[in-house]
Each structure stands twice: as C-alpha cells, then as structure tokens.
C-alpha cells in the first residue's frame, strides 16, 4: 500500500503491526480522528485507550503500560505531545528508558489554520535535549511506514514527528529504516544540504533547479537523535558550504544539531528554518510556509548565497 500522507501511513502501519504484535497499544487524547489512531481503535478496540483531553495523564499512563510489557504509542499534536507532556516524558519515560513511543502529529506549520497555539516549532529542540530519547522526523509517507516498524523493533523512548498534509514521496517504498543513518537522496559536490521532514522534498526540488549552476548534495536526516557524527562529517567532505533546512525553529533543531557536529570543520553554514518566532494562521499551508521562509525558493536563495562564499 502506498500513502502520500504521513498520518495515514502512521495509522495504517500501526494497524498492520498490531495484528501480530499484541504488545502494541495506542493512546489518544481526543484527537484520534486526526492522528489516525482511530484506525487502530477500529481494528483493536481493546488495545486502544481514549484518554480524553489530558495529555499529561495519557503520557504517564503510557509509562505504566510500558512497565507491563506493552509498547504504547501516544498520539497528539506535536505541540501538546512534546510540550504539554514534557515533564511526564522526562521524569519517568526518559529517565527510566521506558519503551514508550510518542507521536507528535500535525507538527511544524502543517496545522496551518489553527495558528501559533497548534504549530510546533520547538518540539525537536525539546525532545532532542532529553537524554535517552530517540528523535525521528521522516521525510515522507514511505519513510513513515518504515520508521514506525523501526520504532517497534527498538527498545526505549522514541519521538516521531509527523506532518499533517499530503505530499509526494521522495524516498523509496519498502526501504528499511535505519535509525541514525542519514541518506543521500541527491548527489552533488559544492553545497551539502541537510534537510528533515517534508523539507527534504523541497530541498531536492531546489537542488534540481540549480543543476548546471551549482552542484548540490541533498541529505535526508530523518533521525535527528542519535546524530551520526561520523556520517555527517564524511558527507560534507569536499563541499565548500552547508545549508540546513527544517520546518522548525533554527534554535535547537536540525540546524543546531548539524552545527554541533560540524563546528570543528570550519565551513560556512546557512540555516533555513523558522527564525525564532511562533507561527500564524493561514488559509493554506503554502501561504504559511512562504511567510516563514520555508519554500523551494528560500532554499535556492540560501544555496546560492553559500555558493558565493
């Protein structure tokens, strides 16, 4: 089955995995219709828990379920999953390395209509600062399917960040997800672009449009933590500059994570991301991405600027 929406890929994959793996349980905070936890609820009602609009309780309940051998997936919008339940994640799940999977759905600006209160621009930063946490941000629906499988196979806490809207796939279907391995989706020599989430697709478009003018390598960083330092250093060899691209604040996200690795490489880095501000309501997703500088054109501009260095 091919999906073009990360939420659909997520919900359907949980149903598929839950068929033979009784350990999987799913918790929703009255957003199951949006997170697609409702698909699991329809398939296995006894293993789905409606936790009401109470994310903190939901997250600690998941910790308890994990301690009875279950693999709980908690679903909410990223802004609540990572923000509202931060302390519950930190204090019990992360300190104890409990096997809880946290899904931050409708992340970034993807809930365009609801505005700043519902647009998570700092969830990667929060989650990646927590010891013992794995942070995954798939580029597309194909990768989401594989990432969910990898989350079940790994033991320990994991945060997955998903987009709300439909997008074409840029990664191959059925390619197993290796946690912590960045992948080159387009080869190039001059500029290395590290991108995550749906911005990977836009980075590839930007790179293709610059072909013949600037040779751009596009790297999909779908695991933000653990960051594979050796791989990142080796990927920038021969490139003169680096651009990072994320639908997240430039404070503490992918750009920061890459900079932490490359600070000794002495190469110029440009960040494409949300410039330390909150989001805003818009009538459509493209408007809000454009307003915050998150389009193909913005990425091209950053690459061209770096090529002149």
């Amino acid at each position, binding site marked *: 089955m091919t999906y073009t929406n990360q939420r659909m890929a997520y919900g359907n994959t949980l149903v598929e995995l839950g068929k033979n793996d009784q350990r999987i349980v799913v918790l929703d905070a009255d957003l199951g219709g949006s997170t697609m936890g409702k698909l699991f609820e329809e398939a296995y009602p006894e293993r789905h828990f409606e936790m009401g609009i109470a994310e903190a309780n939901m997250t600690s309940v998941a910790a308890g*379920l994990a301690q009875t051998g279950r693999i709980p997936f908690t679903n909410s919008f990223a802004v609540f999953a990572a923000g509202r339940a931060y302390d519950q994640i930190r204090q019990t799940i992360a300190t104890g390395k409990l096997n809880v999977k946290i899904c931050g759905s409708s992340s970034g600006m993807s809930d365009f209509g609801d505005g700043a209160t519902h647009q998570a621009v700092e969830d990667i930063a929060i989650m990646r600062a927590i010891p013992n946490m794995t942070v995954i941000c798939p580029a597309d629906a194909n990768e989401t399917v594989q990432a969910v499988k990898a989350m079940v196979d790994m033991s320990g806490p994991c945060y997955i960040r998903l987009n709300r809207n439909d997008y074409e796939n840029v990664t191959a279907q059925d390619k197993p997800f290796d946690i912590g391995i960045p992948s080159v989706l387009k080869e190039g020599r001059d500029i290395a672009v590290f991108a995550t989430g749906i911005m990977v697709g836009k980075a590839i478009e930007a790179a293709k449009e610059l072909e013949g003018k600037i040779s751009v390598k596009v790297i999909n960083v779908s695991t933000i933590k653990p960051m594979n330092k050796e791989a990142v250093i080796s990927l920038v060899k021969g490139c003169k500059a680096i651009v990072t691209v994320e639908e997240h604040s430039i404070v503490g996200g992918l750009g920061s994570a890459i900079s932490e690795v490359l600070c000794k490489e002495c190469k110029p880095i440009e960040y494409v991301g949300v410039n330390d501000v909150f989001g805003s309501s818009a009538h459509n997703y493209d408007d809000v991405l454009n307003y915050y500088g998150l389009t193909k054109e913005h990425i091209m501009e950053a690459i061209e600027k770096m090529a002149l260095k």
Partner: protein
Amino acid sequence: MEYSKELIDDLDKKAKKLRKDVVISIGVGVAGHIGGSNSSADIVTALYFYKMKHDPKNPKMTDRDRFLLSKGHVAILQYAALAESGYFSVDDLKKTKEIGFYLQGHPDVLKTPGIEAGTGSLGQGLSIGLGMALGMKLDHIVRKVYVLIGDGESAEGQIWEAAMAASSFKSDNLVAIVDNNGLQANGKIIDRYNSYPLIPKWESFGWNVIEIDGHNMEEILSALDEADTVKGKPTVIIAHTVKGKGVSFAENVVGFHNGMLTKESYAQALAELS
C-alpha cells in the same frame, strides 16, 4: 475482619524499624525527608509486610502486586521497606544519595531493584499506576497496583486527571492511598494552599473512599482488605497521619519536611525508635 494481636504487634514493630532505618539513612548533617517518611511508615509497612504479593528474589515476577511512591521524595522509606524485605542490604541504606550509588534521592527504576517507575515530579504516580493497572487487566493478571500520594501533592492537576481516568476505566485493581499529614513543604495545607476537602473530591470523581487513622495498623489492614471487595471502581484510602510520627521533635514540624539532624537529635531519634 479480625486481625491477631501478634500480627498487629509484629507490623507495628516493623514500622518502627522502618522509621529507624529512615533516620539512619539520613544520618547527621545532611537534609533528608524524615517528615513524610515517618507519616507514611505504617502504610508502607502494611503493604510490604502484609498485603502485597512480591518476591525480593524475583522483583519482576509477573504475578506481583505493584507499589508506586508518587510522593517520591520519601524514597528513603521505600528503600527501608525494600531492604527489610530482602531486596538489598539494610547496611546500604546509610549510603543513600552518595554520588553514583544505587539508592538515589528519588526512586530510580534503572538503579534500584523493586522500584516500578521513576517518580518524584509530583502528581504523576497515580497516572503511572493506572497504566500498570490497565496493562495488568489486558494480561488478565489479578493483582493490584497501590499508589501512595501526598496531600500536598494533591494540588497537582494530574492527580485529578488520573482520578477521572481511573473511574472512567472502572479500574478496580488500582488503590490510591493519601498520606493526609496536613503539611506541605512550606506550612500547613489549610493555610498555604487549601486543597481540602479531599473526601468529597474523590467521591465526586467516582472513587470508593475509605477514611482511616493512618497510624492504626488494624484500620490500615482492614482498609486494604476492603479494597479487594470493591468491584467496578477504584478505591482511595484517606489516611490521617502525623508528619514526622515517632520522632517527638519532628512531629508536625514543618522544618522536618526535609530536615537535618544534629549528632544529638540523631541520637535522640534513634533512642525514641528503639
């Protein structure tokens, strides 16, 4: 239910021993949570040495009752109960909070045998216990989850999220015990931040409520046994207690929430508990 005098005497003695262990693990010149440990000591004794099915040789035994110390700051009391049960050496208690040691200031699930989950950020233990209770029902394990919470802690909103959820799920394998000692870290609850009345709150959240004297062993046992008979709803035991109980100079004294003992007061505390 009738309990033999011998049983009650034994448990009272054990509770006294736990209080003594608490004083020894705090030691001299270092702050420790003597107040809330001593108010909870009889309840914790009843759980570990009468009520709960557990095995120090096999702490993760599937068919066990579980205990969660939501008021995680009195970890020293739980360590005393675990040590006296045989999970680890009683001699180790005095090394509590030494750098890198397996007995931390708050319960650490990765370091200490017998700890079910990390707690101490207040208000979260009941939710964790509910998760365990739900998981045990899925596995058809007919055991219970006991969660000890503080009355000061009851100001945390998540306690009430969990209370609402547990009655919604009809979790009759979940038992909350409120150590109602009347004091929070900075003073009397009724003066500082009035979270009372507790009983009508729990009743309105759909719980079976039992009110007891939290230092009367017979009443504690009876309440724990009564909880077994309640079907379709969780039970909360509101236990009226005295903070610092058993150490005269610490009883009802706010400063001994996390207090320090001098050489003299340490000796006096041990003498009173011997």
